């Protein structure tokens, strides 16, 4: 598709949409809830439109950074406000825009402290967009942490089930991971060749010795791996998913976890390719643990959200496995999985949140026969579940195919063992579906109302994305392919 290049600083505009909306929301008195919601919705819709435009106008054949925006910030510390887009982040920006758009729609029913809720959401999203588009390590870190704190508030104020513990664990854990990044970034800056936080400049100017590469890569990997829920740093994520309110879960599992994996690619692999190669086998083993172990643990859960939480652990393992293969297909698959898992898990949470609001429980044993009472929401959940178990025609299938082929080609034993998860995933997803949606109707939930037309929209958008990219995966691959190729120097 040939769309002419965009003339204005599109990336900053995307970033500014939520920021301006945030200011507007903060200045609006809290009692005008509809105005607040509308402002948020308009902002998220604007980011969605702009992101789609960006995806179309972005030149996929060119592996280098495009739409570069630079602005000196603190010159003496090499800090620049710098944004750019390439294959790695273009899809992530789109993902974020889709998820926040749906997230805002899904949280239309929030009544408790509406203003604070939407302010937090917008703030969070600004942080996420920032991480995805910046090319300066300082701003990367800044946005990264910006994205974490609103999550704490969202969970603590609007959450459920053990929320204080979960929120604190999530926050501390993520920041613990970022501590390693912080030290790593400052170390890079302190090198005499560097003296800048600009990613591109560092790549050009600095040659890291193998030893340094190994150490820095693994510390960054652990830092990012925490956010990507890499085994054994994953336990914050199911707890966090469970405790968070619906829209926060969507963003959290849909986008926030992807920041970690994105960071590994954007910074870890980009700056330290040799370190990445050195650690790849280790990471592959961890990823395998994620995939199989996460799926196994998911079979034992009784809370619907925990099941999805652990399935996220399992699916993020596929992303990590793709990264560990250090091949173009593996990277493509990892990115694809990030995207489709983001959409899928957002859909999951959009459904579970709705069920929880209606039935006041998420326990498998207390639910049943919902397909009868609420066929639409059940259908959406089942679609998400089918995507989760890798049904062809959905995004996840292609992603898993790419990663699996790459993994089997690179680490046969690990790759083949990881296939086991396909079976286990089918088992727990279908068991959950069977318990919750099938079986005789549960008279406790007779009054449960199915989603109406308005609430239909966000979920339908998500399903549409899943199927579209599942059927036409090459569109996505064309975005990322040149960049992953360049990333690997292939």
């Amino acid at each position, binding site marked *: 598709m040939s769309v002419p290049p965009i003339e204005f600083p599109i990336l900053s505009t995307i970033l500014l949409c939520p920021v301006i909306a945030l200011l507007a929301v903060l200045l609006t008195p809290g009692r005008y809830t509809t105005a607040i919601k509308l402002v948020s919705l308009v902002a998220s819709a604007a980011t969605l439109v702009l992101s789609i435009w960006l995806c179309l106008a972005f030149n996929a054949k060119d592996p280098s950074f495009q739409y570069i925006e630079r602005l000196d910030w603190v010159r003496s510390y090499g800090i620049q406000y710098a944004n750019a887009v390439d294959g790695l982040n273009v899809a992530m920006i789109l993902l974020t825009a889709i998820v926040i758009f749906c997230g805002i729609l899904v949280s239309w029913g929030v009544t408790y402290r509406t203003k604070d809720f939407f302010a937090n959401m917008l703030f969070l999203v600004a942080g996420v967009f920032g991480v995805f588009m910046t090319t300066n390590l300082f701003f990367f870190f800044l946005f990264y942490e910006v994205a974490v704190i609103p999550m704490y508030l969202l969970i603590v104020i609007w959450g459920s089930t053990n929320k204080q513990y979960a929120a604190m664990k999530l926050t501390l854990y993520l920041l613990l991971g970022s501590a390693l990044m912080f*030290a790593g970034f400052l170390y890079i800056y302190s090198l005499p060749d560097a003296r800048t936080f600009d990613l591109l400049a560092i790549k050009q100017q600095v040659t890291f010795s193998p030893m340094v590469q190994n150490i820095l890569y693994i510390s960054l990997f652990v830092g990012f791996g925490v956010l990507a829920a890499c085994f054994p740093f994953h336990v914050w994520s199911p707890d966090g998913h469970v405790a968070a309110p619906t829209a926060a879960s969507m963003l959290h599992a849909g986008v926030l976890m992807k920041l970690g994996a994105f960071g590994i690619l954007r910074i870890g692999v980009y700056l330290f390719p040799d370190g990445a190669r050195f650690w790849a086998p280790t990471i592959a083993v961890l990823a395998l643990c994620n995939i199989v172990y996460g799926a196994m643990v998911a079979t034992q859960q009784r809370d619907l959200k925990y099941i999805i939480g652990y399935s996220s652990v399992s699916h993020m393992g596929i992303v990590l496995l793709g990264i560990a293969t250090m091949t173009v297909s593996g990277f493509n698959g990892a990115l694809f999985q990030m995207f489709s898992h983001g959409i899928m898990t957002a859909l999951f949470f959009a459904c579970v949140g709705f069920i929880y609001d209606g039935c006041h429980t998420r326990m498998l044993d207390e639910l049943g026969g919902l397909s009868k009472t609420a066929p639409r929401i059940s259908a959406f959940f089942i679609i998400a579940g089918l995507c989760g178990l890798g049904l062809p025609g959905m995004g996840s299938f292609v992603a898993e195919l790419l990663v699996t082929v790459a993994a089997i080609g690179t680490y046969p034993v690990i790759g083949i063992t990881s296939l086991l998860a396909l079976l286990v995933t089918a088992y727990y997803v279908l068991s959950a579906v069977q318990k919750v949606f099938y079986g005789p109707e549960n008279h406790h939930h007779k009054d449960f109302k199915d989603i109406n037309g308005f609430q239909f929209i966000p979920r339908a958008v998500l399903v549409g994305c899943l199927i579209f990219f599942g059927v036409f995966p090459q569109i996505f691959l064309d975005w990322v392919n040149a960049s992953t190729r360049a990333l690997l120097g292939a």
Partner: protein
Amino acid sequence: MTSLMTELIYLTGILGTLCLAIGRGERPRRWALGLGLLTAVAAAIASACSSGSVTELFGGTYRVDPLSQGYKAVIASALAVCLWLTERGPSESRRVEVYLFYLCSALGLTLMTGSTGFVSLYVAMELSSYSLYLLAASREDRRATEGALRYLLTGAIASGVFLWGVSILCGLTGGATFAALTQAAPALTSDPLFIGALALTSFAFLFKLSAFPVHFWAPDAYQSAPLAATTLIATASKAGAVAVISRFLIASGVPVAFAGWTGLLAFVSMTLGNTAALHQADVKRLLAYSSIAQAGYILTGLLAGTADGYSSAFFYATVYALMNCGAFLVVSAVAADAKNDNPTVRHFDGLADRQPFLALVLLLSLLSLAGIPPLAGFTGKWVLFSAAMDQGHWFLVLWGVLNSVVSLFYYLTLVKHSYLEKAPAGSQPLRLTPVTRLLALAIFAGLVFLGVYPTPLIEYARSAVSAIAG
């Protein structure tokens, strides 16, 4: 004369307050408060306005330069906030003399920032300390005496050790000014006696900064002093200490062994402060431990011994004063409402419902203390640790960041109380005076502005430091 404008303003204020102290009762106290505020604001403006000049006075024992003027502005602003807080504290002394002590201690701190000779430094330090001891004791409470005495005796011992160190330094360098120290230092960097003397001398500075191993007074004094005095100890006093240490280190250089020693202290300070703060219920005490930890961070930046280190220390001291002002402002409002000068975390329950703006300021101040972007504390920590990392202190930096994560636990606990817990039944909305609201707004804006666009202040600090260190 214009270069001493700030000091003269303080002197005038002190004289005025002295005159007012003849009177008794509410009216002179209000006058004294007004005069004090006027003095503080004037001093802040005067220091800010004369921030371009470099003058040496009194035979090289006193210097007026951009760095000192910067610190002076910070101290004066912090003083203004503290003075305003005396108005609301439930257990503030209603005497006029109290304002005298505030101004005296601020004057002492101001003088500290410009001292380049040991005599003037000693006098300035003691001037500020004595006033603070008295302020700490000015609360009508048995514990206040106890806290103040501990503060005093620790300070006295620290002064004694400091004097010993200075005497040895004088003996080694043949002069009692920083200039003499600078001259002699390069030849002495590996002299154990010199390093020992540096360590002894810095003892008093560590006391001021409430760093390990002379931090023990801090929790007690913070807890027992009236809120306004605690705020002064936590903000202006820290800024003064950072100024002195910067000057001292610039003059002496940072020998490797000394840096190692400081690093060790920084390490213990942050660990001890942060972990002990996990177990505090009294918010003032909690903030005391947090300040011990923050002392560790500041030392980490200072021991880099580079222009970057000193300028980032200035930046951080400014930011630190700002965010502590924010935190104490909220604490004082809660304390005033609860009629209890030592609010516990429980008193913060439901703050977000009772006064959303104040809760927001508390949130930002605490997050800034924990170093969360996009707030000033984050940028401060970034530049501070960046300076340390440049000198290869990667372990301290890593440890420092990990410590900030630990610190987040207790900061967030406070946040949780204000946002999540329900206010006790029957509690009223918390009312704010317009000035307090304005003050809170200023702090809010400052935290965000310095976090998002720190460039002007950082550049100022760099140029100020390079004016001294060359």
